[in-house]
């Protein structure tokens, strides 16, 4: 589970007449990660697409164009169509679909074109409606020049001063003008107009009254819009009728093209083909058997190498890297995307997914630790897992669901609170559910000999102990990280390297913790410093051995990284701190709502309830963001850096995913 699957590199050679069936078989097996054939191999070229490709891609092209016309998009929950039915009817259906929609689409396009023309015409004519002239009167003069357009300032006064003969028409708002002026004075007139912010609008090449023309344009636009609506409705009906078929046919053709183009990734000579691929070792027998059954002796299969995990770093080029196939059992696999987000694990390193899926929900639960928020988390997460399909949302739903479960657990037993209010009555005189509801909720539930606590610690009053617990959790988390690192280095480079690289840090961690415990007694509990204390001696020994080992392995940088370890451990105090900040906010809202407003009675109770609801909604959202981000950060920054490299190539086998079609 933790280590990616063992891979073997396989060579398949056969004659070209078997190529098509071989490709089909490879897709059926779903366990073959193809290696792209190097283009420069001597004596070989890249394969050429199977004959089916060109026909299918042509049809695909037509189909996609029609899909676009109809506006068909991905759909959920349609009954898949059987392939044999589809194959039989494909050509005919595409043809009839084409006939049905091409006319409609064509006329719709024409009308749309005409509409945009009309729009332009309307824009051109609109300003002239404000002037009392027919359009013919603007042109055809020998001795006159006509200026029409918008002005920013009224030019009339200036025109009167410097021009003898002119006639000016102006729209009511004074923004649009038509100026008739004698040719010999037109230059001067133009200069004046420009000074008044003139921008020309050409006179439309039509005749008649502008308002009449505008009316007829508007009327035509209206009829065209109506017919477009009709056509859209028709298309809508066509879409409903044909969507299922179109989607299925597209998928089917896509698969055909994908398969037919696979030979482009293979090597080929005149009469034979050659395939190199990675196959998980446990699937190899199945692969060989399938080939034997289908082709007998006519295809040659050989295992080229069984990829070892040791010493792979840097010895292989990128294209020669073994792909990484990880399979985590449910529910661990839900967390895989969180690791993927950083990068795929390497072929020779442990997959941290299962560990994240244990630690993350615990951290999340500790940070929120409130039944009132935990229950909505679980519900939201559950709904998300049911409804969402995208990786991102599914991961968020997973985090909410499992985080929510631990939130409830910690909220119920460790903190004993819901919506920031403790269940049992408190010695600090705060409001609790007990005092609010007027019933006595006990601190412990006695189940036979077992005493189950309902609230061990208060987030605000037991800060020290919670910080202490957080730091211990951090130490455990880091310890696990170093152990994983130790295993990783052992796998890659052998035990000796692992001792120098990682065991030293394990010893340093243990030493530091033991010393820390001894010193805590001295500093906090004011006990005398006893140098012969087991923790003191053991801690020092472990620390010194660790540093010496590290010094030999990595040099002086070990000493420089020591403070980093301390800061890593301290970093876990956020587990307590975030819980505390949530509790503080909740306390404030509860005080405002319950102690300050609600006693007013009547309407005030409703107001108090609203404040309570809004306040907790806010804390709830903040809880998702802060607890989620900090929970994942502790994994990525503190935990992963102890062992994780990443950067592997994801196993991506040839396979067909069908949504709208089904094989018989």
């Amino acid at each position: 589970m933790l280590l990616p699957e063992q891979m073997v590199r396989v060579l398949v050679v056969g004659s070209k007449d078997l190529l098509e069936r071989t490709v089909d078989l490879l897709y059926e097996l779903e366990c073959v990660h193809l290696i792209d054939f190097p283009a420069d191999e001597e004596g070989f070229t890249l394969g050429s697409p199977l004959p089916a490709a060109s026909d299918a891609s042509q049809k695909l092209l037509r189909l996609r164009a029609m899909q676009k016309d109809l506006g068909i998009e991905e759909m959920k929950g349609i009954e898949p169509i059987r392939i044999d039915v589809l194959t039989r009817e494909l050509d005919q259906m595409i043809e009839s679909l084409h006939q049905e929609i091409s006319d409609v689409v064509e006329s719709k396009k024409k009308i749309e074109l005409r509409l945009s023309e009309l729009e332009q015409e309307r824009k051109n004519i609109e300003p002239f409606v404000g002037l009392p002239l027919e359009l013919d009167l603007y042109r055809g003069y020998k001795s006159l020049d006509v200026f029409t357009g918008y002005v920013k300032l009224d030019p009339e006064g200036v025109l009167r001063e410097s021009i003898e003969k002119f006639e000016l028409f102006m729209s009511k708002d004074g923004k649009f003008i038509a100026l008739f002026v004698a040719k010999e004075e037109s230059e001067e007139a133009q200069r004046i107009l420009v000074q008044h912010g003139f921008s020309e609008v050409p006179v439309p090449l039509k005749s008649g009254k502008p308002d009449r023309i505008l009316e007829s344009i508007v009327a035509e636009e209206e009829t065209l819009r109506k017919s477009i609506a009709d056509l859209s409705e028709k298309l809508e009906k066509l879409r409903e009728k044909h969507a299922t078929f179109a989607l299925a046919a597209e998928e089917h053709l896509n698969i055909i093209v994908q398969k037919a183009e696979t030979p482009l990734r293979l090597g080929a000579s005149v009469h034979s083909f050659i395939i190199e691929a990675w196959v998980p070792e446990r699937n190899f027998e199945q692969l060989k058997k399938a080939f034997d059954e289908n082709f007998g002796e006519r295809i040659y299969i050989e295992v080229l190498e069984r990829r070892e995990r040791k010493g792979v770093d840097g010895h292989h080029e990128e294209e020669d890297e073994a792909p990484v196939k990880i399979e985590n059992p449910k529910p661990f696999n839900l967390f895989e995307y969180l690791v993927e987000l950083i990068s795929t694990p390497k072929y020779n390193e442990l997959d941290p997914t299962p560990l994240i899926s244990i630690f993350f929900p615990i951290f999340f639960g500790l940070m929120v630790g409130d039944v009132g928020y935990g229950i909505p988390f679980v519900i939201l997460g559950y709904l998300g897992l049911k409804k969402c399909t995208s990786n991102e949302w599914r991961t968020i739903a997973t985090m909410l669901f499992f985080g929510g479960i631990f939130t409830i657990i910690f909220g119920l037993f460790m903190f004993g609170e819901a919506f920031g209010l403790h269940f049992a009555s408190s010695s600090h005189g705060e409001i609790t559910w007990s005092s609010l509801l007027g019933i006595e909720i006990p601190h412990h539930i006695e189940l036979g000999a077992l005493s189950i606590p309902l609230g061990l610690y208060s987030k605000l009053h037991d800060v020290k102990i919670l910080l202490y617990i957080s730091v211990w959790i951090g130490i455990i988390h880091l310890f696990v990280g170093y152990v994983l690192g130790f295993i990783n280095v052992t796998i890659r480079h052998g035990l000796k390297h692992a001792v120098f690289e990682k065991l030293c840090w394990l010893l340093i961690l243990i030493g530091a913790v033991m010393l820390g415990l001894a010193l805590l007694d001295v500093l906090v509990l004011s006990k005398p410093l006893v140098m012969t204390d087991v923790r003191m001696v053991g801690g020092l020994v472990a620390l010194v051995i660790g540093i010496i080992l590290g010094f030999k392995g990595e040099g002086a940088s070990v000493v420089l990284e020591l403070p980093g370890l301390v800061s890593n451990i301290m970093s876990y105090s956020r587990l307590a701190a975030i819980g505390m900040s949530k509790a503080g906010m909740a306390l404030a809202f509860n005080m405002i709502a319950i102690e300050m407003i609600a006693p007013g009675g009547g309407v005030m109770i409703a107001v108090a309830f609203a404040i309570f609801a809004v306040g907790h909604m806010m804390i709830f959202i903040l809880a998702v963001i802060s607890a989620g981000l900090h929970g994942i950060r502790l994994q990525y920054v503190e935990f992963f850096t102890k062992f994780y490299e990443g950067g592997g190539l994801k196993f991506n086998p040839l396979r067909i995913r069908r949504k709208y079609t089904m094989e018989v």
Partner: protein
Amino acid sequence: MAIEAGLIALGAGLAVGLAGLGAGLAEKDVGTAAVGAMAENEKLFGKGLVLMVIPETIIIFGLVMAILLWTKMV
């Protein structure tokens, strides 16, 4: 006691506030660069996130100091 308590509270406030400012300044730069990198290549989201939250430890230190001070006050 009153003055002591006040000074402790002041110290705690300064610890959180100044550490917060420091963390904010550091994260501003890292965050800008991370978003830029992500715009180029979405796959860098995870790495960007990790780099971005590294300076955040500073504020946690401030918070821890503040809490320790505060527990002395109560």
